[in-house]
């Protein structure tokens, strides 16, 4: 019988060996896939046993902290957002029921100490072995709470957004979006967020309009058209035009828009005056002369058709550009597929985000170079050591240096004696451009814009303001908001 017993023994040992192999499969190969599954509640709960890192503004104001809850003999850390709805779109939320958004989502690895820096790996491994609570890394942002508060107050009761950058470094100083929501309510009472109503439909309080809101740019796009025209070498700041009050598009008259500070028909003007008074007929002519292809090409140099760079999640940022039936659209043959005249003054199917338009202003302010926008200043370990510091880096050159210099002059003229006089700051050179985009037929509300920077020549702030559903023009609605936020930023100590 021993021969049979030996064979059976092999079977018995093989059965247990199969279990070791299967366990190895689930605990090594399959782990990553299982941990990523939506319904993996263990993973979700385990995340809450980590003492998540704090998120702070530039001056140290705490934007996201922890609230300890004890359940089943385990200490759990839930998020608390002391600033309520003031920073909710950038910071986002971290909850059980609705997962995560904003930086809470994209920086989750840092905040939970699971980033792969050698230093962090060593520390968390030690904490794990000692059985201590794992502590995440702290995140310091570039946002300035004072200016952010001003921006949110200015936007109160409206639908819109303000983005302010430091053009020299790419630091995001203000990123505001209205309507907003209280991230503390996401877990407790989401119905209240769902029921938020606003001056626009849909209210979409969770949407970060600054990076994910797409709006018709209207006349602020003329800055991009001007850059294309000047860069082409065919035009200079002194080029002369004859404004007849309209331009002919496909045999039809397209009239000048009514938001200009002067008479409807300007007659003989130069390029500077055309931008100063935002004369559609002139830009229509320029667009037709240089072609839609060149204008779109320049827009790409500004960063259109790419997700604007930022640390927030990719699905909370949208690229600017032409949109066709809800999809980003780059024409194969721009001369026949795009109305170059209307594109030149920011209509056609062009849609832009406030962040992108702030980058346009920053490019002009910073001699044609866009610094990569970033909202994270540094990430520090629980002990204070710096894990990661974000250094200013050049994102792209948007236009020639000479073009930028010309545009500074032209945009300054807009504020000193053009459509944007409401943005004047005594003793400070301000440059800007207004935009009033029709979203429907005549009489329907407009999307209004103001982009600007100051002090012109040595700018410390570049800003974009957008408002939805406005009766007035960009110069009367958006420019005062830009003024208030710029003053708040410039009044603060000048940051290096």
């Amino acid at each position, binding site marked *: *019988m*021993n*021969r*049979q*017993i*030996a064979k*059976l*023994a092999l*079977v*018995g*040992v093989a*059965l*247990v*060996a*199969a*279990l*070791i192999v*299967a*366990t*190895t*499969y*689930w*605990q*090594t190969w*399959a*782990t990553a896939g*299982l*941990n990523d*599954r939506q*319904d*993996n*509640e*263990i*993973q979700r*709960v*385990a995340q*809450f*046993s980590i003492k998540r890192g704090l998120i702070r503004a530039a001056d140290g104001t705490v934007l996201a902290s922890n609230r300890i*809850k*004890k*359940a*089943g*003999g*385990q200490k*759990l850390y*839930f998020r608390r957002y002391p600033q309520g709805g003031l920073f909710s779109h950038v910071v986002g939320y971290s909850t*059980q029921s609705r997962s995560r958004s904003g930086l809470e989502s994209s920086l989750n690895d840092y905040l939970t100490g699971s980033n792969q820096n050698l230093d962090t790996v060593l520390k968390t491994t030690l904490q*794990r072995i000692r*059985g201590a609570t794992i502590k995440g890394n702290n995140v310091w942002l570039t946002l300035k709470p004072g200016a952010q508060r001003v921006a949110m107050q200015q936007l109160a009761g409206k639908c819109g957004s303000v983005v302010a950058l430091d053009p020299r470094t790419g630091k995001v100083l203000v990123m505001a979006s209205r309507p907003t929501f209280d991230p503390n309510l996401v877990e407790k009472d989401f119905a209240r967020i769902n029921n938020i109503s606003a001056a626009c439909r849909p209210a979409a309080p969770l949407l970060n309009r600054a990076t994910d809101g797409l709006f018709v740019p209207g006349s602020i796009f003329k800055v991009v058209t001007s850059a294309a025209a000047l860069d082409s070498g065919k035009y200079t700041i002194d080029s002369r035009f004859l404004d007849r009050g309209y331009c002919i598009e496909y045999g039809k008259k397209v009239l000048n828009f009514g938001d200009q500070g002067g008479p409807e028909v300007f007659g003989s003007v130069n390029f500077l005056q055309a931008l100063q008074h935002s004369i559609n007929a002139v830009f229509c002519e320029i667009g037709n002369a240089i072609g839609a292809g060149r204008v779109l090409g320049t827009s790409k140099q500004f960063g259109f058709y790419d997700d604007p760079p930022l640390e927030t999640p990719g699905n909370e940022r949208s690229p600017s550009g032409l949109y066709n039936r809800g999809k980003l659209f780059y024409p194969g043959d721009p001369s026949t597929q795009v109305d170059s005249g209307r594109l030149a003054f920011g209509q056609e199917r062009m849609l832009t985000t406030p962040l992108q338009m702030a980058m346009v202003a920053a490019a002009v302010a910073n001699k044609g170079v866009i610094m990569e926008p970033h909202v994270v200043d540094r990430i520090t370990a629980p002990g204070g050591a710096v894990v990661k510091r974000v250094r200013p880096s050049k994102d792209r050159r948007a236009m020639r240096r000479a073009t930028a210099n010309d545009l500074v002059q032209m945009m300054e003229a807009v504020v000193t004696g053009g459509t944007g006089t409401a943005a004047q700051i005594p003793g400070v050179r301000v440059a800007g451009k207004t935009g009033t985009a029709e979203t429907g037929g005549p009489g329907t509300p407009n999307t209004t814009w103001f982009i600007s920077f100051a002090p012109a020549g040595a700018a410390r702030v570049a800003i974009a303001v957008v408002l939805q559903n406005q009766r007035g023009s960009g110069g009367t609605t958006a420019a005062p908001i830009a003024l208030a936020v710029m003053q708040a930023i410039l009044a603060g100590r000048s940051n290096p």
Partner: protein
Amino acid sequence: MNARNRELANLVAVGALTALGFASVYIARQEVVSTASLSYAGFFFALYLAAHLVARLTVPDADPYLLPMAGLLTGIGLTEIYRLNPSDAFRQGLWIVVALAAFAATLFLLQHDYRRLESYKYLFGLSAIGLLVLPALPVLGTSVNGARLWVHVGSLQFQPGELAKVFLIVFLAGYLREKREVLAQGRLKDFGPLLLIWGGAMLVLVETNDLGSALLYFGIFLAMLYVATARVLYVALGTGLFLAGAFAVYHFVGHVRDRITIWLHPWTDHAVYCSLNGKMLPRQDCASYQLVKSLYSVAHGSWFGTGLGKGTFRTTDGGQLIPYLNTDFIYSALAQELGLVGVAALLLVYMLVVARGFKIAMLADDGFSKLLAIGLTFAFALQTFIIVGGILRLIPLTGITLPFVSYGGSSVVANFVLLAGLLLISNRANAERG
């Protein structure tokens, strides 16, 4: 060093390991458990010392590794049960006392010659059937999780199937020893009593919906038949019959069909009908949630585990994440807290027990002893495979206990009786040799 001294030395090591386990649970969960937890290790060590003394008196020449390994497995089980639910660990401790009493009783009763059991083989066979029928009786039986396995007498509950397993092995060993020559010739009439008893057992199992045990009994039966007759044909035939039977059951019994579906497709992207609450839900949120949650627990352990007492088994509200955690799914709790390194070591202990068991069968010099030893050993191996393989999705999941580790009185008692059997066989073989 003689066999018993070696056993004692190993038991001291096991006692130290168990103390370490309880200490780490205590450190990790100070807020929930008391210092009394540390006395568990002492109590536990005293129990095994007593068992060792019984072995010294009754089976001085028996294998010295089986008792310490069983001690290690119960120690690990008790630690984890304690970590999950301290009051369950207290009850499990009491059951271990009962089990060791049964262990001692078996050794004392049969120390002179266990082979006289052979003459009572039919009694054992019939008792096994009787025990299996108990839960199906309307007054005594209760249904848990779709299977009728439990007998309630007052507040006591017992799973008679565990003991029936040992009885059936005794019957098969006796019967096959007597009839092995004629069975090998393949005359149909010799198979009569065999098929009768076995068929009865299977009928009862199908009736109680206990699929795991059905598979277990059938595997034991085929293994013993193969060793007795050396005919691979019987194994092939038996497997064919089993598959045909399984196919038929699959088509006629909804419970079985569900188990298979869960095994093959635990996750669905779309909502399917959920028979638990009548809603449309993805399968992982309904029928297969036990399997899926348990797999998440295994995966969360990864290489080194979270550490004893540091695993995640509760929701943020304190509710249970995985049901039946300390009985059927104790392996997924251990896998999470000890990691691959820990549970691979645990499985190696199972493998060693199996290897020692087969070695005892090889050394035994009479047919009854050999068949009894391989029956008990293979039962142990197969039961481990059925529950852990079910958790790891190697086979459809059926609820059955993990020998020595799971919470459950009947299982611990039955497995200690099984252990006593192996020690008796080993003692006799070694004594004759020495």
